[in-house]
C-alpha cells in the first residue's frame, strides 16, 4: 500500500519520480560544488549552462549528426535482416535445426573482441560503425521472430491443415498475426543494441566524431564539456527509447501464443 493515500494515483506516482530525479540532480549539484574536485565532477548547473557553448564548438553537432545517421541506418538494416533471417529460421524446420545453434553460438561470442578487426577491414569511418551497430542490432529481431514462430500453438497448425489452407494462407492468416506482437517489442531492444554497437565503435575509434571529443575532454580534464556531451547523448537515447516504447504500446498489443 502507498504510504499516503494521495500517492496512490498514477499521476501522483509521476510526481514522485520527478521529485526523485530532481533530488538526484540536487545531490549531484552539491557533491560537485562542495565535496569533489571540480576537475572531476562538474555541477549540473554549470554543465547545462555550458551546453550552448559546447554545441557551438566546431565538429560537435556534426558528431551527433553522424551518430544519429549511423544509428538509423544500422537500425533499419538490422530490422530488415533480422526479420528475413528470423523468418527463414522460424518457418523452415530444417533451417531452424541447423541455424539456431550457430545463431546462439554467435550471439554468445563477445563482439567487442572483433571490433579491431572490423575497424581494420572497414576503416575508422562511418561504415565500420554502421556494421558494428548491425551485428549488435540484428539479434533481438532474429531471436524474437524465430522464437515466436516456433511457439505457435500446435492447434493452429492442425487447424490450418484441417481447413485446407495453402502455405501462403497459413502464413498470412495464422503465422503473421502470431509473430507481429513480439516483432514490435523486439524493435525497441534492437534499437538499444544498435546504439550500443555504434557507441562502442565510436568510442574505440577516437579520431573523429563523438569518440574524438570524449577523448579530448578526458585528456584535458574538461569535466563540464564531457558531462555535457554525455548528457545530450543520454537524452537522445532516452527519447529514442521512449518513442519506440510508445509505438510498441500502440501496435504490439498482446502475445497470441
Amino acid at each position, binding site marked *: 500500500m502507498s504510504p499516503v493515500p494521495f500517492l496512490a494515483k498514477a499521476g501522483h506516482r509521476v510526481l514522485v519520480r520527478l521529485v526523485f530525479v530532481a533530488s538526484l540532480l540536487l545531490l549531484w549539484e552539491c557533491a560537485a560544488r562542495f565535496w569533489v574536485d571540480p576537475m572531476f565532477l562538474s555541477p549540473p548547473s554549470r554543465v547545462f549552462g555550458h551546453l550552448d557553448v559546447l554545441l557551438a564548438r566546431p565538429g560537435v553537432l556534426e558528431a551527433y549528426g553522424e551518430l544519429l545517421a549511423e544509428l538509423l541506418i544500422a537500425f533499419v538494416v538490422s530490422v530488415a535482416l533480422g526479420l528475413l533471417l528470423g523468418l527463414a529460421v522460424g518457418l523452415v524446420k530444417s533451417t531452424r535445426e541447423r541455424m539456431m545453434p550457430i545463431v546462439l553460438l554467435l550471439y554468445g561470442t563477445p563482439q567487442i573482441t572483433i571490433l579491431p578487426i572490423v575497424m581494420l577491414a572497414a576503416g575508422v569511418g562511418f561504415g565500420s560503425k554502421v556494421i558494428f551497430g548491425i551485428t549488435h542490432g540484428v539479434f533481438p529481431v532474429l531471436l524474437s521472430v524465430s522464437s515466436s514462430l516456433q511457439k505457435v500453438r500446435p492447434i493452429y497448425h492442425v*487447424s490450418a491443415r*484441417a481447413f*485446407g489452407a495453402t502455405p501462403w*494462407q497459413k502464413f498470412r*492468416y495464422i503465422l503473421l*498475426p502470431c509473430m507481429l506482437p513480439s516483432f514490435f517489442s523486439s524493435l525497441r531492444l534492437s534499437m538499444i543494441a544498435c546504439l550500443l554497437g555504434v557507441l562502442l565503435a565510436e568510442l574505440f575509434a577516437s579520431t573523429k566524431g563523438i569518440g574524438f571529443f570524449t577523448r579530448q575532454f578526458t585528456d584535458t580534464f574538461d569535466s563540464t564539456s564531457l558531462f555535457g556531451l554525455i548528457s545530450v547523448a543520454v537524452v537522445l537515447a532516452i527519447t529514442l527509447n521512449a518513442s519506440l516504447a510508445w509505438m510498441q504500446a500502440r501496435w504490439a498489443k498482446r502475445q*497470441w501464443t
Partner: protein
Amino acid sequence: MSKVFVVNPLDTAIEVKGVSHSFEAAQGPRAQSGAELLALSTTDLEVRRGELLSLIGPSGCGKSTLLNMIGGLLLPSSGEVRVNGVKVTAPMPKTVSFVFQENALFPWNTILDNIVVALTFQNVPAKDRVELAHQALGAVGLTEFAHYYPDQLSGGMRQRAALARALSLKTDIILMDEPFAALDEQTRMVLGEDLSTLLNQTGKTIVLVTHSLGEAVFLSDRIAVISARPGRVLEVIEVNEPHPRDPQFVTSSKFSDLRNRLYALLHDEIRQTLSTQAMANKALKTLGGSPPHG
C-alpha cells in the same frame, strides 16, 4: 418437430476397415529408436449418413487418433478409411470439417473474421464470405457478437462460434473432438440441447469424441465404446430415440439403462487406464518428457 430424414443403415458415409495406428515412441519409457506405441489396434467401424455417432472410451484409448484418421489428419498404419467411397489420404476441407476441444479459434480475429478466414481457406469466392459467415453465426445465435474477439466471450459462446465455423463450410460431415470438455456441466447441457436441435435441421453426419457418458447417450444415434489402449471397438450401442432430443429424455429410464450399460462396459477399462497412466507418467517425469494425449 420430427426428424427431417430417417437414417438409412445401408447408406454408409464413413467406412473404417482394419485401421490401426502406431506412434513411433520418440520419447518415453520405451525410448529405443524404432519402438512403437500402438495407439489403436485393428478397428472396423461404419458411420451411417445423417447419424450422430459417438466415440467413447477411457483417456488414451485412441478415440481422438481414430477421429484424426477419419479426417485425414493422420494416416493409418494399417487398413484404410473411406469417406463417401473415396479413400482418405489427406484432410478434405470440402467434405469434412472439424470442431476441436481446445480453443482453436484465432484470438487475433473477431469471431466473424474467424469464419471468413476459414471460408478463405476453403477458397469460397471473396464476395460470398461475409454473408455466409453472418448466416453461420445466426444459426448458432451469435449474431450480435459477430465483432467480438474470442477472449471477450464465454467458453460456451466460443464453442458455439467454433461450431458456426464448421457449419459455414457446408460440409456433409463434421468431426468433433471433445468439443464441450472444457465447459462446465450446465453449459454443456444447454449446448448439447442446441446441438441436437441444430443437427436435426441440417441432416449432417457427425462423429463425436466424448468422455461424458450422459452426453454420449443424449446426443447420439449410436455409441461406439472403445477399450483401453490400444483401443478397439468393444461394442456399438443403438440409441433409438428421435431427434431433436427432448430435455426430459435425460430423466427417462431408457436413458438410465443406456447410461448404466455404458458404465458397465467402461468401468474396468477406466480403472485399468488410470493405473497404467500413473505408472507411465512417473516414468516419463524421470526422463523429462510429457505424457502423450489420448
